[in-house]
Every structure is written in C-alpha cells, then in structure tokens.
C-alpha cells in the first residue's frame, strides 16, 4: 500500500450499488425471473458518456469524479467506479491525513534496525542474531459497534494477515480496547461481544494475547475503539513484498470464497459518521472464520518456506480492488484478471460486488509459472481453495474481464497511489481555552489518613484502574510456548526461536490527556509505552501507531490530529525510535461530538536475553523499594480527577523525553545486570496504584515512607517514573546507575507483610485491596 501509514482491515458497509440491479428484499419479482442487467463494459462506457453513476452514494465528491473522468478519458464503468470509490475513500487513501503523516518520515530518527518502513503492510525491524520482527496496530472501530463480536474478530484477522503477508509467522496479538461508561446500558453488549470476538478469533488461531488496554470513558459510548496489534517473526532474508513483478507471472487468489459480506465497507461505515440508521447496515459487517485463517497461515508459511511467491498481498478493505491495484502499481505495472474465475459463495454476485467484497481470510499471490503447480499442491494439502485469476503484464493497465467482456481498463497507480490529497482547514476547538483554564488544582484534595486511604481504595476499584483479569482470562496467553510476560505485566514479552533473545511490546494511549493537549497527549502515550517496554528490561527500538479521531471535516478535530502527529513525530525523533507503520481511524464521532482524540501507540523493544526480564510483582520479602524519577503536582487529566470528580480540565502532565530516555537507560542497564527483583512503571493513578498492583500480583505487602505531600506523592501522574524492588545490597548499585544518568532516586520502603502501608498515614490489608481491585469488573460485566 502506498499510503504513508498503513491501512486497517475494512471498516464499513454500504447499500448495494443501484446499477447492480439486485432484487429488493420482499420485492415483487422472484429472483429467477429477473433478467440480468446489462454489463457495463469499457466499450459501453465510451459510447454512453451521459449515463449517470451513483458516485455520490459511494462517497465520491464531484471533484473526485471529475478527476477520475479525466484519468480515464471517459466515464468510468460501474466496476471501475467501484474500484476508485474504495481506493480513494478516506479509509484507503488517507486523503485527509497524508499531508500530516509525512512528518513521520521527515522527522524519522536514524535507525540501523529498520528493514522495512512505512508504506508496506507492516514495518520490519532487525532484532539481532539473524532475526527480524514485524508488527503493526490497526483499528476496527466502527464494525465493532455495529456487530461487536464479528467486528472485533475480523479486526484481529485483518492485522494477522498483514503480518503474515510480510513473510512472518505471527507470534502474538495485543488489543487496545475503549468502551463507553461502564454503567451505560449498551456497554455490556459491546464489551461482551468485543472480548468474545478478540478471544474467539485469536484463541482459535493459536496466537497468545499478551497485553493491551481496557479503558472506559463516556466519549466512547457509541464509538468504541478496537485496536488490534499483531507481531510476527521472520528471517530478514525472507521478507515478502506486496508487488507483482514479471510479465507472465500468475496471479492467484487463495483462501476463503468470495461472498456478499462487507460490500462497500471501506467507503461507507468507516468514512461516514454514525446515525440512527447504522443498525440497518448490520448485514454488511464481515464475518470471520478463524479456522480458515489458521489453515491459510500454515499454508502460507509452507509456501514461503519453499520460496514460491514473488509478491503477496492480503485482501482487507476493498478486497480484490485493493489487492490487484496495489500489487500491479508496485510491480511491473500491468495485470490481466478474469473475474469469472473468482470462487463465489453467492453465484448472484455482480462484478462490482466481487470487486468490493470484503470477505475475510483471502490472499493474493504472484507466482512464477513453473511454481504454480507446487503452490496449488500446498494449498490442496491445507484444504485452501486457490485459483489462478490472471497474470502480470507490462501494459501499464489493470484489465479485468467478466463474461468475456472488458469491464475494467485503468492505470493501477492512479487508484493505488494517486488518490486525492486534502489540506483540510484546522483550528483549535472552540472550547479548548475554557477546558485548559479549568485546572484540577482547585479540586478539594484528601488530606487526612482516612481520606487518603479511601482515595486509594476508590481508585483501585475504579473501572480504568481495576484488575482486568475478567477480560484477559478469556484470552489464551500460553499457546506457542514462548510467552515470557503477559498482562498485567507492563509489557508482553515473547521469546524468539529457542532464545535467548526476545521482544517486548506495550500499547498505551490516554484520550483525556490528548483532549487537553493533543501535542503533549501523543507524546505522553509514546512515553508510557516506551517506559513500559523498558520496565521489563527491553531496549525500545520502534513504534507503531493507531490514530483514533473524530471527523476530519471538523477543523477542531483536524487540529487535534495535526498536533498529535507533530507531537508524536517530534517525540519519536527525540527518543530515537522510528514509526514503522500504523493506521488512521477518522469519523469516530456521534453527531457533532467527536471522541477524545486517542492516539494509541505501540512500542517494540528488544531483550538480548529474555531470562533477564523483570516482572512487576513484589516476590521477595525484605527487598528495598526505590522510586526513580521526579514527582511534581500534576493532576490535569488524572485518574484521580476523573474518578472522584469526573473532572477533565487543565493541562496534562508535562512530557519529559530526556528524563524518559534516561530512566529507560537505567532500567535496561539494571535488568542486564540482573539486580532487579521487580519493576513497575508509575502512570495512571500514580504511585499508589503502582505499589498496590505490585503487591497484589506478588502476594506480598509493602511499607513506604512518603515525606512530601502524601496526596501528591500517591496520586500525581508525573512522567518518567518507575518503582523497582532490589535486594538491599544492590540498592547502592541502582542509585549509582541513576546518578550516572541524572535520574532522581529515593529509597521509599521495603517489601513485606500482608498490607499496603504508608507510614504515618494508613495500612490497608491486601485482602481488602484485592476485593475491590479484582471485584470491580466482574461485578459490572460477569
């Protein structure tokens, strides 16, 4: 894909094309009696310039249609219109975001690890010892509201195929989920379906789910966010590309048959805001079959191992339209396809529908003629249907026939790479000044020991900070046998090969921070994911991102987007971690109200020896607890303000990328020396939450002394901080590492006992904490 930031699997659905002449449900005429409508051939298009085409209904505006007309030198056929309407949709062309996304390339830090950057199905980085890793995060937001189970399931399926397409064996998934208010009537439906869908698909595919997020906020009520990440492992020399080189090479469609699901998805559901009619679109959400995807995965890996393809592309948004145009555009430039050969599960499909179908579990490969027989043999072994549809040409044209007549004849690069680009107007949202002026500083703070204790308990049992086992226990984290760490640890850690090397992955995002200051909010999301990876002892090396925003046609939203991209690009440059790919999801809004802008950032780190990974749990009595980093009174957008007052105002914590890099260097160095018994980052909910999570996870209490303002010490969300537990003999060594890196460090207490105690303030038995922390989500959703 040529877009600077990669495409999600489909987000959409739409009414059938009027000219396709499908029978109206409940209509008068029996299907059998219906005469086939005339085929809109290229010749007919040239002869009938005045035929009206429903381009507006397909999401194309007058200017875009005019441009298409001038590219072709005639009106498009209905099949060509189908192709361009999806390829030029916001979802596939990034027409509103492209001018901003180029900042990631302009500001990209030097990286020797980057093997494949933005623009392919997923980025690839070298992780050493002859191994490479490919990873990407992608949204499937809109379908997951309409049909939560299938929306989430096919979101997992789509990102897994992106990773597979790079030539890698998928080795883990993560999911970053955002739902409406936990007590809102519809949240239970959406959460239950999404979690079952993520689990139902990923579990059946044999991919361990190693982390992610579950966040609640009223702004996501009718716009849940389902962002799925997949990571795969391969040898650098085995990277595959989405290209169709070599005239005469065969184009093979393999995987599931093509049906009427998700037709037009890309251009409508993802590119139009929801209204009351959205439920009527339900049948158009795609339906996943993880069993077929598992067969397709194993089949592809055997095909790759025998080096049978010269190019490969998965079919996601825009299906055959997207795969053919992109493969051709990136290859020799031409392709001939016979659409009659596409295996259908509904024989009544018209060519426009075949082109737009988003049926899942399909791939398209380009294979040298001499290797076709073996390719088909391996597909048969795995019971994967495979069909030669056509071949690569040097004509520079994508030509398609249907029932013997030419219905598509276009230059593929114009559909794949030369879509419209918009510089949409932007300006800060009108209410931003008022919001930022409404600081959290004026909120009444707890001060007595009882008030502090109650606040600790209140936050520990609040939905965003509560234990997420209710969700994560529905996911298989053990399969493949290489999971070294998984949620609730700070990052998921996967062993590569037989070890000792491995990778760590974390995703983070904070819509409240980003609402208050999108530039800082994006940087804070990156900071937290970067910190989480380093907390396990891994060296952060690369970034993926999923940018979830409202309508780009709203100048306020566009400003949030531009600011967030700028902030993220600057932060990636400062931290030396390049963006390798990702996805933009616009139109996450209900009526005029957009979601809080929510960039979700994934960071990949490398472990030279996974046996040195550091866990978050307090495991051993008597360990010294050190707090690394500086705590400032920062409460704008904090969980404390959110939970206790439902307050959102002021400014978020100040990003400090220099401090973040320094902290990470200490954590990585100490992990390598093997002196950390535990490490846990300080973020949402502050130090209180960090300590109680480490206590509950390990089953041991702690006693700490906080000489400053205990409220600020416990609940501030200042960045660049972590707690570590070390044998007292090693405390001086950690302090020395901190001093060398200019990281403030304080010895605040000791691991032990069966309570979370703050000297002079309170002591809360772990059994009491566990009850509120672990009981919250089951009481809402079980």
């Amino acid at each position: 894909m040529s877009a600077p930031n990669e495409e999600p699997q489909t987000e959409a659905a739409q009414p059938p094309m009027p000219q396709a002449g499908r029978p109206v449900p409940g209509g008068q005429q029996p299907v059998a009696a219906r005469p086939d409508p005339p085929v809109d051939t290229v010749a007919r298009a040239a002869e009938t310039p005045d035929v009206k085409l429903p381009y507006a209904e397909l999401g194309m505006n007058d200017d875009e249609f005019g441009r298409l007309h001038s590219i072709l030198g005639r009106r498009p056929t209905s099949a060509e219109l189908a192709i361009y309407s999806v390829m030029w949709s916001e979802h596939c062309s990034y027409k509103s975001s492209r001018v901003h996304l180029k900042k990631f390339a302009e500001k990209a830090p030097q990286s020797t690890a980057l093997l494949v950057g933005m623009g392919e199905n997923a980025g690839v980085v070298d992780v050493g010892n002859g191994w490479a890793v490919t990873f990407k995060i992608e949204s499937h937001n809109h379908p997951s509201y309409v049909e939560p189970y299938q929306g989430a399931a096919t979101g997992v399926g789509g990102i897994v195929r992106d990773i597979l397409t790079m030539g890698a064996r998928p080795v883990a998934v993560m999911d970053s989920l955002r739902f409406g208010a936990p007590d809102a009537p519809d949240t239970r439906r959406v959460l239950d379906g999404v979690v079952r869908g993520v689990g139902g698909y990923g579990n059946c595919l044999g991919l361990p789910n190693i982390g992610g997020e579950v966040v609640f906020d009223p702004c996501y009520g009718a716009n849940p966010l389902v962002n799925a990440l997949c990571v795969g492992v391969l040898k650098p020399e085995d990277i595959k590309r989405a290209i169709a080189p070599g005239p005469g090479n065969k184009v093979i469609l393999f995987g599931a048959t093509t049906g009427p699901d998700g037709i037009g998805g890309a251009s409508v559901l993802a590119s139009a805001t929801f209204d009351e009619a959205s439920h009527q679109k339900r049948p158009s959400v795609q339906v996943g079959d993880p069993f077929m995807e598992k067969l397709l995965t194993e089949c592809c890996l055997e095909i790759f191992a025998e080096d049978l393809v010269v190019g490969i592309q998965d079919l996601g948004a825009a299906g055959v339209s997207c795969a053919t145009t992109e493969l051709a555009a990136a290859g020799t430039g031409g392709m001939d396809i016979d659409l009659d050969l596409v295996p259908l599960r509904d024989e009544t499909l018209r060519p426009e529908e075949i082109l737009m179908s988003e049926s899942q579990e399909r791939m398209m490969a380009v294979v040298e003629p001499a290797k076709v027989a073996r390719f088909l043999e391996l597909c048969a072994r795995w019971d994967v249907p495979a069909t030669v549809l056509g071949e690569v040409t040097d004509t520079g044209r994508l030509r398609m026939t249907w029932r013997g007549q030419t219905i598509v004849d276009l230059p593929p690069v114009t559909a794949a790479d030369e879509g419209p680009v918009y510089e949409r107007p932007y300006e800060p949202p009108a209410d931003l000044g008022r919001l930022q002026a409404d600081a959290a500083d004026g909120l009444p703070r707890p001060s007595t020991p009882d008030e502090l204790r109650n606040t600790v308990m209140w936050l520990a049992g609040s939905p965003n900070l509560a234990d997420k086992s209710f969700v994560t226990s529905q996911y298989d984290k053990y399969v493949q046998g290489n999971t070294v760490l998984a949620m609730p640890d700070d990052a998921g850690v996967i062993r590569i090969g037989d070890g000792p090397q491995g990778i760590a992955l974390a995703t983070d995002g904070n819509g409240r921070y980003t609402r208050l200051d999108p530039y800082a909010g994006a940087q804070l999301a990156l900071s937290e994911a970067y910190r989480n990876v380093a907390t396990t002892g891994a060296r952060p090396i690369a970034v993926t991102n999923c940018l979830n925003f409202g309508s780009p046609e709203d100048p306020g939203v566009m400003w949030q987007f531009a600011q967030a991209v700028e902030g993220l690009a600057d932060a990636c440059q400062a931290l030396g971690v390049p963006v390798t790919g990702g996805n933009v999801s616009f139109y996450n809004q209900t009526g005029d109200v957009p979601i809080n802008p929510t960039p979700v950032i994934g960071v990949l780190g490398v472990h030279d020896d996974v046996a040195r990974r550091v866990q978050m749990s307090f495991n051993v009595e008597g360990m010294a607890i050190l707090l690394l980093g500086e705590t400032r009174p920062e409460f704008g957008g904090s969980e404390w303000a959110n939970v206790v007052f439902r307050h959102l105002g002021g400014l978020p914590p100040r990003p400090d990328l220099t401090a973040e890099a320094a902290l990470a260097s200490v954590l990585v160095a100490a992990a390598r020396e093997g002196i950390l018994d535990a490490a846990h980052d300080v973020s949402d909910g502050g130090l209180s939450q960090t300590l109680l999570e480490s206590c509950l996870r390990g089953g041991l209490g702690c006693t700490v002394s906080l000489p400053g303002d205990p409220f600020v010490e416990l609940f501030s969300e200042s960045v660049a901080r972590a707690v570590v537990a070390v044998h007292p003999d090693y405390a001086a060594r950690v302090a020395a590492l901190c001093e060398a890196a200019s990281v403030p460090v304080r010895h605040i207490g000791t691991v032990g006992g069966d309570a979370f105690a703050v000297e002079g303030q309170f002591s809360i038995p772990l059994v009491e904490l566990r009850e509120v922390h672990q009981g919250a989500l089951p009481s809402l959703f079980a």
Partner: protein
Amino acid sequence: MTARVGVITFPGSLDDRDAARAVRLAGAEPVSLWHADTDLGSVDAVVLPGGFSYGDYLRAGAIARFAPLMDKLADAARDGLPVLGICNGFQVLCESHLLPGALTRNANLHFVCRAQRLRIENAETEWTRTYEEGQEIVVPIKNIDGCYIADEATLEELESSGRVVARYVDVNPNGSLNDIAGISNEAGNVVGLMPHPEHAVEALTGPSSEGLGFFTSILAGMAAV
C-alpha cells in the same frame, strides 16, 4: 534409543509444536504425524494436541475423530499404545469412544485461561508414573468446552476403578463433574486431560515446569520394560 513420541497435527491444531517441545525437553524424540497419514510410523506413544481441530465446527473433536489416522490410532490404543489427549485431544478421544463421557461448554460460558492447581489422583498410568499419588501441580488451563460430564454409572465406575487421573484443586474452572480434570481408559494407556501440561515445561514461559512429568512418564515406562 529414546522413545519416539508422535504428535498428530489436525487442521486447526494449535499446540502441536508445544507438545513436540515438551516431548523433546523430556528427552524423547518428537515425531510429526499428519491427520491424513495412514501410518503411525512406528512411534512408541502419541499425543493428540490442543487446539480447535476443524474449527471445532459441529462439536469439539467431532470431525477430527474421522481423520484417516484416527482409525489406526484407535486400533493401536486398544493394543496398548500410550495415547495422551490434551484439551482438544481429550475431546477427540471422547468423541472416538476411546474414553467415556463428554466435554461441554464451560459452566460460566466464557473461555477460561488460568494457571490451575491439579491433584494427581492416579500415578500409575502410562502418563503419570513419574508423579506421586496426591501430588499437586500447577499447569495452565485454557478452553471453552472443558466441562467434563458423564452419566452416574460411568462416573461411579471411573471413581471406583481409579480412572480419575487428575482433579481440579481450589477452583473448578469449568464446572466439570467431581472436579475431574483428566481420566484414563481401563488399561491406563489412554489418558485425556483438559489442562495443558505441555505449557508448564519451563519456568520461564509457564506457571511452573511441573507439567513435564506427563512426558517423562513415557520414558520411565519404557525404561521399566
């Protein structure tokens, strides 16, 4: 010469490579078997791994039992070949009538993945002889159709003849009758187990390495012969 332990891959098997790893860590030689094979390849034992064979369509294990290799396996099992069915493999063994009873949807209707404590109730089967009777181990469990059921008479027979191989301790994760986690056939060579010992063979990646005993038991059995 070490034991050759076959691991059958069905379409949709997921834990086949994990089972092979466990076999290797136990000191035996894993042998990949394909569902469409018609020959067990002179293996000394067979593992039916976890996963969703044939997508678990129709009913978990219901289609896999008709795989060409299953006929051969059933004959060999009746002749005494040690067979361990893990999770989906257990479901296949029940569908094949090599073991009695059935596995149905978990009582809470959710997929459940957790580190589970088990008690080894019978340490004399081909797959448990390196454990002590009554020994407690922690291994992962992960399934949505793990609720073991059988009629009263079958349960009574399993209990009275010591054919309950392992039982859930502390928490019954899926509603299985009598907290049953695993059972054996009368001869003790065929064992079905809902939890996953192959995911508890290394401390780094599992909740323990206490699952390894199922795989070393085969070697111990061979040494004893």
